[in-house]
């Protein structure tokens, strides 16, 4: 790890002032990803601004009937928050599906959005990686790509976004509140993370010098018919091969509104309006779910080692929609998939 200046920020304005105009500066909060990447020399900030003292640790009701989650709310505190457990159980479930309790005790809401891919070439500075070093090439496309993207990839990058929490936030249509030198703005969750295109070094549409201050979830929490289904190589404490967050609004057997987002299949949580349109007004049955899965996966592309993920995703979508429709969400402690 290279040397760096360490600074503490007192409030949001102070944090924004300290990072302004410094492309080599980074904010640190939970540190669970940044410090790991600094040890690997993947991240080499020359200034690290500690934002853990900022007053962004509240979960509050919004006038609109949703929740405003401070950027520094730790993952466990959010998953165990009574309002989240009651009104947004899919968010609680997705958080508990990720990492370990030690990491969830450290990791923050804002940091979860900002975490980098776990592509092993991104982590290995001896290899080419367009995300780590633009124009150096992508080692994954013709390399070990079992964990990689099947949707939305480019010739420059087929990395996936590793978060579980963000998959639920995408399904819930959260909003990201950010602050910068030129003021505050709100970014729709669907516009927050980017596809790799020819600039895979940019994970998000956050501008230089901006800081996440809160994540807002709208009133609709799908607390009755939801699930977060995560399939991985071991039963706990592993990144997903495929995950699915579902929220359904049912009228008897008919789907009034159906949303589903996939994790670990693309450079960002993946939603598809056409696939969700295939659910609307249809009976909640296996045929409907299979059709929606086919629509979502119509442009899926496998590489040498990850083609299995296309079929896995198809089955996960069908299973997750079934779980949500039955009101039997996936347990994150019992691993039995029903």
């Amino acid at each position, binding site marked *: 790890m290279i040397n760096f200046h360490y600074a503490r920020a007192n409030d949001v304005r102070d944090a924004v002032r300290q990072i302004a105009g410094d492309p080599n500066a980074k904010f640190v909060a939970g540190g669970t990803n940044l410090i790991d990447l600094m040890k690997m020399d993947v991240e080499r900030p020359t200034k*690290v601004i500690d934002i853990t003292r900022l007053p962004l640790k509240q979960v509050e009701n919004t006038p609109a009937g949703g929740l405003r989650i401070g950027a520094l709310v730790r993952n466990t505190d959010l998953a165990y928050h009574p309002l989240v457990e009651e009104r947004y159980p899919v968010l609680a479930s997705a958080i508990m599906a990720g990492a370990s309790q030690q990491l969830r005790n450290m990791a923050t809401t804002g940091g979860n959005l900002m975490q980098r891919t776990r592509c092993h070439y991104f982590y290995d500075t001896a290899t080419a990686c367009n995300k780590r070093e633009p124009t150096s090439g992508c080692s994954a496309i013709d390399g070990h790509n079992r964990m990689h993207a099947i949707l939305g990839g480019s010739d420059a990058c087929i990395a996936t976004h590793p978060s579980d929490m963000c998959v639920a936030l995408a399904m819930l249509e959260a909003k990201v509140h950010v602050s910068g030198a030129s003021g505050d703005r709100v970014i729709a969750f669907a516009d927050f993370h980017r596809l790799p295109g020819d600039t895979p070094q940019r994970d998000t549409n956050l501008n230089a010098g901006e800081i996440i201050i809160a994540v807002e979830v709208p009133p609709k929490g799908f607390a009755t018919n939801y699930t977060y289904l995560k399939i991985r190589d071991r039963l*706990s404490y592993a990144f997903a091969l495929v995950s699915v967050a579902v929220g359904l609004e049912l009228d008897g057997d008919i789907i009034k509104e159906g949303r589903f987002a996939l994790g670990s299949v693309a450079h960002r949580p993946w939603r598809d309006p056409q696939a969700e349109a295939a659910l609307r007004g249809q009976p909640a049955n296996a045929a409907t779910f299979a059709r929606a899965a086919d629509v979502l996966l119509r442009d899926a592309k496998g590489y040498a080692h990850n083609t299995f993920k296309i079929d896995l995703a198809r089955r996960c979508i069908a299973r997750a929609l079934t779980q949500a429709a039955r009101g039997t969400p996936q347990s994150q402690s019992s691993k039995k998939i029903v």
Partner: protein
Amino acid sequence: MTSTSLTTPEAVSVSLIINGAHHALMLDPRTTLLDLLREHLDLTGTKKGCDQGQCGACTVLIDGRRVNSCLTFAVMYDGAQITTIEGLAAKGALHPLQQAFIDHDAFQCGYCTPGQICSAAGLIAEGRAKTAEEIRELMSGNICRCGAYTNIVAAIQQVMGRS
């Protein structure tokens, strides 16, 4: 203003309460809490396994919550209370978890054990795990390469039954 790399590390002051003892320190900010404990304070009970947050051997309690000490810069926890495996036993008597790990033969090589026990202390304080299944899930951040998991769960259940 663009910052540039320092040629020599700058020292940052931090004050920590570790196992009840106050420490006023000047640290290279790159010092992880794990390295501070082991290399500066000779508290070598906390183990370095992967140093990447993947194994849990470095688990300690910060203000009562279990965390991976390898992924924290010590200077970020100014004023915090740190409890390590050395601080669990009160007045020479084993902590109930330490006794339970002995009773149940919940280790073989012992390298992961301090992290397992600190993690289990955090788990019990959280109060979320009720069943063996839930204990296993919420202890998944602690890897035991000897595979003593069955006995680790039994040891934790023994203490949970008491508390």
